């Protein structure tokens, strides 16, 4: 991923900043220009709590190139306690025996390196709570 694109996504990747609709209070992550619930166009920026639960999960055994040294690894759809759903890696889960409904929290981790000498991309991953 280009460095500039990663940089633009710091508010979400680093600080979990969501757009909360001022009209109906729905949380959007990542932010969007129009609320899909009430069509509102005014939002407040708020950081999501870092806790949620697993809605679904799988194991990636044939990964994209930047993640080849990490396979096999767990991916999950997480429903955050503030409402938004995110797709992310789940790490520090031992043998990978994740369960639907399991509580997790987001931690700050390395996502991948551009190359041995390239920039390091950081962001969130889920770990068992």
């Amino acid at each position, binding site marked *: 991923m280009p460095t500039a694109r990663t940089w633009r996504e710091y508010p979400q990747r*680093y600080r979990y900043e969501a757009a909360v609709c001022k009209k109906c209070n729905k949380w959007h992550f990542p932010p969007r220009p129009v609320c899909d619930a009430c069509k509102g166009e005014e939002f407040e920026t708020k950081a999501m709590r870092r806790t949620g639960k697993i809605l679904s999960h799988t194991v990636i055994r044939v990964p994209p190139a930047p993640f080849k040294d*990490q396979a096999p690894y767990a991916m999950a759809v997480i429903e955050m306690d503030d409402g938004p759903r995110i797709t992310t890696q789940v*790490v*520090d889960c031992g043998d990978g025996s994740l369960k639907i409904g399991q509580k997790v929290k987001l*931690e*700050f*981790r*390395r996502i991948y390196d551009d190359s041995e000498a390239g920039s390091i991309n*950081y962001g969130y991953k889920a*770990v068992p709570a």
Partner: protein
Amino acid sequence: MSVGIVGYGANLPRHRIKVEEIAKVWGADAPSYKKGLELREKSVPAPDQDVITLSVEAARNALLRAKGVNPQDLGAIYIGSESHPYAVKPSGTVVGEAIGAFPSCHVADFEFACKAGSEAMFVVYGLVKAGLVKYGLAIGADTSQGAPGDALEYSAAAGAAAYIIGSQDLVATIDDTYSFTTDTPDFWRREYQHYPQHAGRFTGEPAYFRTVLGASEALLKKSGMKPKDFQYAVFHQPNGKFPMRAGKMLGFSREQIETGWLVPTLGNTYSGASPLGLTAILDVAKPGDKIFMCSYGSGAGSDAFIYTVTDRIREVQGLAAKTRDMLDKNVIYLQYGEYAKFRRKILKAE
């Protein structure tokens, strides 16, 4: 004006490797290493953990305990480490961005072998005392390197401790400090070298003990205090033996040192070592307790501090994960092959 700790936080990786697992690969005698180092296992960072990630999590825990402190009021962020992920680009730039402290903030990475964390604490303490910043964040963190088969491999571990230092709502005051520095070549890592080198037994008496005792004795004399005046003491802990022996030589008891003595199951977290021990002490300390701390960085130097715990400690202890819980709970043990992969010790084809 009293200056001291407003919030503190730790972060440790969940992975561990036992001394036996390393010893069997190198044909070494595990019982003699365990006895010699007084160390049973050590923490291992996952491949996606480094000084920056550990520092961010420790800083977040420190902010939870410094409730009411807006990250935008942090005027300085200093991270002490000898394993910064970038050779050029400060770790503090990522950490400050992640906790929402930027852009009005002074940032620098510090390096002084294992005392870079206490060095950051000393500088932030000075800036707050001078009135240049309202709050500052000092972090000691490492994912330390030990060459395969070297004695250091049994102890080189990972962890981070973060301190928000200010002059209001203190959980502990910093009452006095003293630094002791000499040119003592006991341990070093040259540019472009992956692993450090050390001078074997020379790292003991003329290096660690001379420096730790030099700083500690000078601070006790300067403050007019005696070891019996303290409830707790924490020293740099490269292995289990050194801090206990240094403490005993100074007149501290085993009971005073044990609470912050994490090394038997954590290993040597280098720049994080004595700052992490202090977090474990603050987790259980009571108002009025006096704490003595002395770091050690090869090369060589020590920073010694005296703290007094305030009434506010009880309000903040439970606001973030406690250090002993992180050390003892939910750990995942690795075999040497997994550990070698995690620590990028395996040479792969391009």
